[in-house]
């Protein structure tokens, strides 16, 4: 019909205050009726100059900052940072420390994916129900974090050379109970949504990215896997002894919002498997090596990457032998995943744009840093 009736595109600001931007993020879309003809991302509303602040603090003092970049996956961020510093300073981590890190990172992935799946379904219009179901399970993971680190959201648990505390003795039974319940919960969410006609209609073919486009945008995580590329840092470049665990990489079919959703669901299942194996083979010994408080790594640079819940989470640290890093840089996965937003939204409707935004699973704290 377009072209028949003379219509003027008008600009619609989605955000910065909008229920579906998951924080303060703004998309300036130009719409023709309901169709989007142009989209421009405006970010920076949550910028806190973290990378600059980190240059004034010691290596250990920087760990809490990493909590606050991606506040939904603080454990993964801690891990990425301490791995980079350990690489820089050449520090070895004891077996037990590595196993605990794996457990925590995978639990964090479950918690974060719960949030991603819930928020995404909320964006498709499933009125709060899946969100509440997901929160119910996420709460239990956060309880485990509270048990070990004392904090639920910003855990500040990883340390250079290991982890801050050993696991409390209630941790293992509680985790095993959670692991026993989780597959049932994932099946429940799957039963509610995956076979649902409306959900399929809303997400299938929406925001589809071909494997080539996804690679060209250097996407990572579920976004990349949704497009059918088997890429996972845990497999490709193992850290913390991930090569010891048996798990698989879920990949999607056509790279649409639905594929990203089912990839996330399956990743939760795989994470359950990993935590199970790590708990079964939890080695004894110290959980951390002694590292001087005022760490002065030799001059040089190091980049460490982990598979965060949102994708490749990289930390780049440069040392000039001082007590604080000379340069501190984060590769935030959701920032880079977001760069493909225009590619995915233009040509679709406003409602599709919201679904696409939900399927990227952005955390604005990480985008703006």
């Amino acid at each position, binding site marked *: 019909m377009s*072209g028949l*009736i003379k219509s003027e595109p008008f600009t619609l600001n989605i955000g910065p205050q909008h229920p579906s931007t998951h924080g303060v993020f703004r998309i300036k879309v130009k719409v023709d009726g309901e169709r989007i003809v142009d989209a421009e991302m405006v970010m920076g509303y949550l910028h806190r100059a973290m990378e600059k602040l980190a240059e004034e603090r010691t290596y250990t003092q920087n760990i809490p900052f990493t909590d606050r970049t991606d506040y939904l996956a603080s454990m993964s961020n801690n891990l990425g940072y301490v791995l980079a510093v350990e690489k820089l300073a050449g520090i070895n981590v004891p077996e037990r420390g590595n196993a605990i890190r794996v457990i925590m990172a995978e639990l964090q992935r479950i918690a974060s994916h719960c949030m991603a799946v819930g928020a995404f379904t909320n964006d498709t219009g499933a009125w709060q129900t899946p969100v509440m179901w997901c929160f119910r399970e996420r709460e239990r993971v956060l309880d485990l974090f509270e048990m070990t680190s004392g904090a639920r959201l910003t855990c500040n648990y990883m340390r250079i050379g290991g982890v801050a505390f050993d696991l409390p003795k209630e941790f293992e039974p509680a985790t095993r109970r959670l692991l026993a319940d989780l597959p049932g919960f994932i099946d429940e969410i799957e039963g509610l949504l995956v076979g649902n006609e409306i959900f399929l209609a809303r997400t299938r073919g929406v925001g589809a990215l071909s494997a080539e486009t996804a690679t060209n945008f250097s996407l990572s995580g579920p976004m990349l896997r949704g497009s059918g590329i088997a890429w996972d840092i845990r497999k490709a470049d193992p850290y913390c002894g991930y090569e010891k665990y048996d798990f698989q990489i879920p990949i999607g079919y056509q790279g649409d919002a639905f594929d990203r959703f089912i990839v996330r669901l399956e990743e939760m299942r795989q994470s359950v498997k990993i935590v199970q194996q790590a708990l079964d083979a939890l080695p004894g010994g110290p959980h951390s090596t002694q590292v001087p408080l005022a760490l002065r790594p030799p001059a040089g640079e190091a980049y460490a990457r982990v598979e965060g819940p949102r994708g490749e989470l990289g930390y780049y640290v440069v040392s000039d032998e001082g007590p604080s890093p000379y340069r501190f840089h984060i590769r935030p996965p959701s920032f880079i995943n977001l760069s493909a937003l225009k590619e995915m939204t233009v040509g679709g409707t406003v409602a599709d744009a919201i679904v696409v935004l939900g399927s990227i699973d952005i955390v604005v704290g990480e985008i703006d840093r």
Partner: protein
Amino acid sequence: MEGFGVSLAFWILTGVTLVAALGVLASRNLLHAVLFLILLFVGMAGYFVLLSADFLAMAQVIIYVGAIAVLVLFAVLLTPRAGRNNGETRMFLPALLLCGTLLAIILFVITDTNWAVADESPSVTAADLGEALLSRWVLPFELASVLLTVALVGSIMLVRSREEEAEDAV
């Protein structure tokens, strides 16, 4: 259906309808004019109720308020500057003349006709209407249907051909 209530209803309806009609004319805001028009339609439905033509009243509301008014609203949505003041046009005088003539003719017809007055209101049910439409008036009824279908097909044809042209142009 005689009595105080009916008379009261008649005068209230008349007031509302007249105000609505004047509103349609006087309103500079296109959307307000449309809303006044809808009020006018509702008032007309009220007249039908007073005349014991229930079915017609309901049809009036469904078709005029439910469908046609909504279509007019669509047209308003596609009009630029619909919500702002619509200024004077050069068509003011001709329109006044035309409407004045029309009013004169209608007034003349009304005063000149010898209106038949029924003692009691006839009760025409929807079933009677259907019966009449499909037996005695079946030819005009079918003709009207064909006409509407032709109009429908015609409008689709108009839109289609232009669409193809637009595609050719691209």
